[in-house]
């Protein structure tokens, strides 16, 4: 029964999914397209969060600053008659440069301090977005030139999402990815073995900010409006973290599973419940922390499957520490 679960079959399934999604604009309504578009944006965010949160092991709760910066700078550039490609490119460069600058003070922090400081960065960005009225439009937000971009934006988001999947996958197997994993396991030991920890950490933050900035740019191009709560609000800040944690951090498959799972839940449940969306997120966070910090993929039933597919380490991060403690 397990025999069809193989690596090459998985790739076939992935390519099949992509083909179906690529053909979707022909028959599907714009509602479905928008739904898949948002899922792709969230998937991009969750996967790029996981580069720092999962591989490096630093909880970057402020990942949505990259999304918001990308969205805002794209919107501003589009309003100044830049082309889409140039606007997106400049937005990404700006986001990456910002990530490089903030990585210097932030990576002097560790653990919960790092998590809270990055989380605080979001509120700082919100203050800037609200107060610099002549640039960002203040609390009223900023609109971009209108137009129907649904189908091209949809394809663009698919490209961004699959690009991030490939990036995350390649990163997990590269020398640099190994350096990140070694920092996650034990930073001091990694440094004593000659891993340039500080530059590795900064570089990983920059790399993870690029897809997030791109996702923000595509999002604002399609939606044509961005405001401080939409860019730096709680929901956009927490979704990637919850998705990655729910699926399983540190595995490329994890955020993917988490993102699909959460967007499905949103679709099925949240349209029936008018209030308490944020509460549901909070309860989900608490339950994750209490019962499965390893995520869905690390549950007893799924882990052998994941390993069979060649994802995840030989000795799992979360299991190993339990063994060591005994």
């Amino acid at each position, binding site marked *: 029964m397990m025999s069809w679960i193989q690596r090459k079959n998985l790739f076939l399934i992935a390519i099949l999914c992509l083909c179906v999604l690529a053909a979707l604009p022909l028959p599907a309504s714009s509602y479905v397209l928008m739904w898949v578009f948002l899922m792709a944006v969230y998937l991009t965010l969750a996967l790029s969060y996981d580069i720092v949160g999962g591989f490096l092991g630093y*909880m970057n709760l402020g990942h949505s600053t990259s999304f918001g910066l990308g969205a805002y700078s794209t919107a501003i550039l589009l309003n100044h008659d830049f082309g889409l490609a140039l606007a997106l490119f400049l937005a990404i460069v700006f986001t990456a440069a910002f990530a490089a600058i903030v990585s210097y003070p932030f990576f002097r922090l560790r653990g919960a301090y790092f998590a809270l400081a990055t989380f605080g960065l979001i*509120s700082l960005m919100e203050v800037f977005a609200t107060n610099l009225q002549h640039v960002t439009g203040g609390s009223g937000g900023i609109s971009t030139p209108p137009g129907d971009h649904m189908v091209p934006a949809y394809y663009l988001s698919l490209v961004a999402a699959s690009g991030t999947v490939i990036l995350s996958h390649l990163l997990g197997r590269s020398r640099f990815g190994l350096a990140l994993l070694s920092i996650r396991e034990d930073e001091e030991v990694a440094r004593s073995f000659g891993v340039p920890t500080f530059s590795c950490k900064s570089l990983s933050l920059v790399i993870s900010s690029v897809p997030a900035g791109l996702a923000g740019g595509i999002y604002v191009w399609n939606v044509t409006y961005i405001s401080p709560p939409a860019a730096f609000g709680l929901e956009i800040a927490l979704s990637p973290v919850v998705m990655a944690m729910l699926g399983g951090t540190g595995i490329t498959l994890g955020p993917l599973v988490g993102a699909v799972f959460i967007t499905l839940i949103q679709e099925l449940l949240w349209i029936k419940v008018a209030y308490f969306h944020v509460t549901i*997120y909070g309860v989900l966070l*608490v339950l994750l922390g*209490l019962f499965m910090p390893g995520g869905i993929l690390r549950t007893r039933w799924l882990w052998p499957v994941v390993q069979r597919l060649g994802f995840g380490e030989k000795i799992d991060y979360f299991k190993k520490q339990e063994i060591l403690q005994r």
Partner: protein
Amino acid sequence: MASQFLQVVVGGILLGGIYGFAAFGLSITFGVLNILNLAHGDFLMLGSLVGYSIFLSFGINPFIIAIIIIPLFVVIGVGFYLLLLKPISGKPPNQLLVASVLITLGASIVIEDLTSFFWAHPITGIDYSLPSLALYGLVISETRLFILLFLLILAVSIQLYLQKTYMGKSIRAITQCRGGAKLIGIPISRISALTFGLGVAIAASAGVFYITLFTVTPVIGIPLTVKYMCIVVLGGLGSLTGSVIGGIVLGIAESLTAYWFGAEWSPAVSFILLISILTIKPEGLLGRK
């Protein structure tokens, strides 16, 4: 000009007293439990809203409210610890970090969302003020001055508690060396529960003063937690004097920013202060290497 400047600084010091006091609650919790309680600011918010309700229904003086809600919030804090944090307390450091961030952040979001749903008045403040004091050309709000004095008395009594009693000594011992404290037979779990309760109660008590001076909305929690974390980084872990000094530095910085650049920029100050300290002096303002 000079007197105006002085006026702003004095206002900042009075504000910083409350900051420092509330941050001390976060500081001891982090020192003993090794868990950064991201819901700390929300407990302050809850404290101020409960204080506000008591003030509305019974009209008790806020200073008395600040004392009578302490036992209530010790119970809430101990319950929170036993229900949510004790199950994860035995985990290895890395898992503990992930789990504690998820749990306290989740709890803080739930508290904020539920409070903003059930709280009828979106923005509230206690209408309580004393006449102002004019001193050498400076105008000092007597309410703030009394609050500062009151907090000072509370702080001194907490300091005595930490220095003299068995539990206080245990708290300090655990902060200094967890393993050693365990070896000599300090009941870590019980002390942790009580410390968490104490930290929450300190936040709630500070919240009552917060609402007498400022307006409170259900969403102030997380920004306040960030502020208090800045103070803890500024002042060092588990030290009451450090927290108070850090709080006063932050209070002055915020007041001066509001004075020079406008009040809408003062939320950014704590964070910029944090980043600049980390860049220049990573071990904290008063910290030792």
